């Protein structure tokens, strides 16, 4: 079969079938089309202002690496006048973070951007490895998500930056829409679809410039520009609600490739139709809800491992079910608007600062400090236990044996 010419330039040989609309494109055209679409998203939503300092939440994964590369390219091409830097969070997951942080460090050199790395260990006194050792593999993503949100905000604050961009893509947004439809969470559906999340919990603006970019195209873009990214999933990958929505979306994409974008469009419209009081009711929880937004923040990694297997799907839904019953209890007042509005009058919450850490929160103690409380309470004999890790124990017992032997020979 003769090679197909590029749909766009009609000259070069097409090497890519665009996942979004199945157009056949050559390499150069694909890269350009991809970049132009991100540019249109940025200008269409007036995302940045000239001279703005922007931190890119960088994990070393494909999404954030592509985001950094595209923003750098567009910034130079169209003269956005942005002052870009990379902001990385070290969750303290050995074997996952160590390597990906190395990637981020290389990216910083490649893109000539300053890099700031902030660790959970120094911020909270707990690395994710330690959290998992304490609470097990279930539900640890809550901790990771809550901690990360604050960490990104704190990192940005430390750098004096008011705008953090993240690598969330169209697939992530579509999943969020479906997921929140399944668990009847309109406030979160509403926030998840908007390109900018100006959360009540902090004065730092968050946005997702890749909101309309397909995950598959991000992978293709990274591949064809030979970007240096790290592709390992979080080893604590959870069996989250997201997994079920993900399977459904993958099926939809097979049937009609545009459906990811179509779901995003539906989600945006639905967000605008969410009744005001429901939205506010959600915002009431201030930092709690805002922080929870990021539970899927390790984003595309979540649930990927479970792929399309029925077993994983069932497992997911069992979790859903239990989440569901908890959810209903909270939801009940919302069903009766009259009640809800009464409550609102009584329990009006204002933004303040957490008494412990000073982070902006509507509660007396912020979500992260609450979680930390729980962790610290259960941590037996805090200081000693933690500093003694496995290796130390081995060496110390070896030392003991040596000493015994020494004593024996002496004797």
């Amino acid at each position, binding site marked *: 079969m003769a090679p197909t010419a590029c749909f766009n330039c009609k000259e070069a040989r097409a090497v890519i079938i665009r996942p979004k609309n199945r157009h056949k494109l050559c390499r150069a055209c694909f890269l350009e089309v991809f970049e132009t679409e991100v540019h249109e998203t940025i200008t269409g*939503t007036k995302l940045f202002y000239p001279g703005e300092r922007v931190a890119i939440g960088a994990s070393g994964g494909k999404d954030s690496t592509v985001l950094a590369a595209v923003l750098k390219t567009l910034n130079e091409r169209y003269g956005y006048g942005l002052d870009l830097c990379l902001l990385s969070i070290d969750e303290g997951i050995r074997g996952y973070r160590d390597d990906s942080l190395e990637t981020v460090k290389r990216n910083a050199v490649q893109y000539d951007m300053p890099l700031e790395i902030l660790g959970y260990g120094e911020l909270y006194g707990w690395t994710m490895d330690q959290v998992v050792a304490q609470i097990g593999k279930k539900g640890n993503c809550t901790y990771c998500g809550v901690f990360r949100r604050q960490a990104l905000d704190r990192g940005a604050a430390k750098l004096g930056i008011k705008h953090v961009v993240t690598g969330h893509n169209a697939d992530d947004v579509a999943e969020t829409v479906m997921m929140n*439809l399944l668990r009847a969470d309109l406030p979160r559906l509403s926030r998840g679809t908007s390109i900018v999340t100006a959360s009540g919990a902090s004065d730092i603006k968050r946005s997702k410039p890749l909101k309309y970019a397909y995950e598959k195209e991000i992978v293709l873009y990274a591949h064809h520009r030979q970007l240096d990214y790290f592709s390992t999933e979080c080893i604590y990958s959870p069996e989250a609600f997201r997994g079920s929505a993900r399977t459904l979306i993958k099926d939809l994409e097979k049937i009609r490739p545009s459906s990811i974008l179509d779901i995003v469009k*539906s989600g*945006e419209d639905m967000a605008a*139709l969410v009744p005001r009081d429901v939205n506010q009711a959600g915002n009431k929880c201030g930092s709690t809800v805002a922080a929870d937004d990021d539970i899927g923040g390790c984003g595309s990694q979540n649930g990927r491992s479970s792929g399309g297997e029925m077993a994983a799907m069932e497992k997911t839904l069992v979790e859903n079910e239990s989440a*569901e019953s908890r959810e209903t209890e909270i939801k009940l007042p919302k069903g009766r608007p009259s009640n809800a509005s009464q409550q609102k009058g009584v329990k009006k919450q204002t933004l303040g600062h957490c008494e412990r850490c000073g982070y902006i929160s509507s509660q007396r103690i912020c979500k992260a400090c609450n979680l930390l409380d729980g962790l610290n309470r259960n941590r037996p004999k805090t200081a000693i236990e933690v500093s003694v890790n496995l290796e130390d124990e081995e060496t110390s017992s070896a030392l003991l044996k040596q000493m015994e032997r020494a004593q024996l020979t002496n004797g």
Partner: protein
Amino acid sequence: MADYRQMKKPNIQQIKLLLPLSLGVSSSILLHILNADIQRQLAKPYGGLGYDLHILVVDPSTILPSSTKYDQAYEAATKAFPDLKLTRLPFHSVFEYVPDMKEIIQEYTGPHFSDDESRSNQDRLAAFRAAVSTATSKADLDSVLLTRLVVGYAKNTGCEVVIWGDSDSRLAAKTLAGVAKGRGASLTWSVSDGMSPWGVRFGFPLRDLSKPELEQYKSVCEELSDIIISDEPLSDNVLTKNLSIDELMMRYVHTQGEKYRGVMANVTRTANKLESTAGSDDHLCPLCGGLVGNVKGNSGVTVANQSSDNHSSKFCYGCMRSRPEATC
């Protein structure tokens, strides 16, 4: 059902209801319940009927291979409910009940397709459907046209309310499919009680009953056994790729609903919480009645992103996706 009772009470004048009957489980059961209600009202010495019920059966033989089963079922229904007015219309009568159908089709399909008015309505509909390539788009347009026919008939006969027999499971699938097809903005009337874009109210009295519950009702209700045409069992041996989005969602709700009814029920309830912001200056899609462009307050640029196929911005996002030459 409480809504529906309220509906008839305050009206001194009889309210005209239209029940589209598919002869499937859900709508047949709704008809059975309403018939019992009517009989009860008639038995009372002084109370007149609270409402005037019209029943429309749309004969699907235009788009499906005709079967004698269908004729038998219709026959059985007319016998079982002798006091009720049943009307049977072929699907292609959409050309009669929606007068501007020709212009809509012409504009929608573009220059590559021409609607030949000299042919029979049946052939015209078949030609239009044949121009649509994918299973998803076909199913999508079928349901749009069916809605238009039902609404057209309702307006023609002066019915103010259409009561749909959709079960909770069906509504959940419709919701998910609607979202997946970019029709999220239409959920305020397509799966929720309320005013449709055509000035006829839509009601969904079976919204709290799941398909399995209705099946159970059917099993203890012998007189319905001749009427109801059961759904074909879902075969497992189908490539996902070849399904339509509507079918995929029906399957999803069916398989997941067996174990997680609550989650599936959530879907419709969530959609019902959305509030319509419809205003008189909204530009509505001439085909499906959905909003063209973005809902007010939605600053997303999904629509702008597909500027390449601005063949006609007269139609809504969802209908543009199902258009014959669309690349998907």
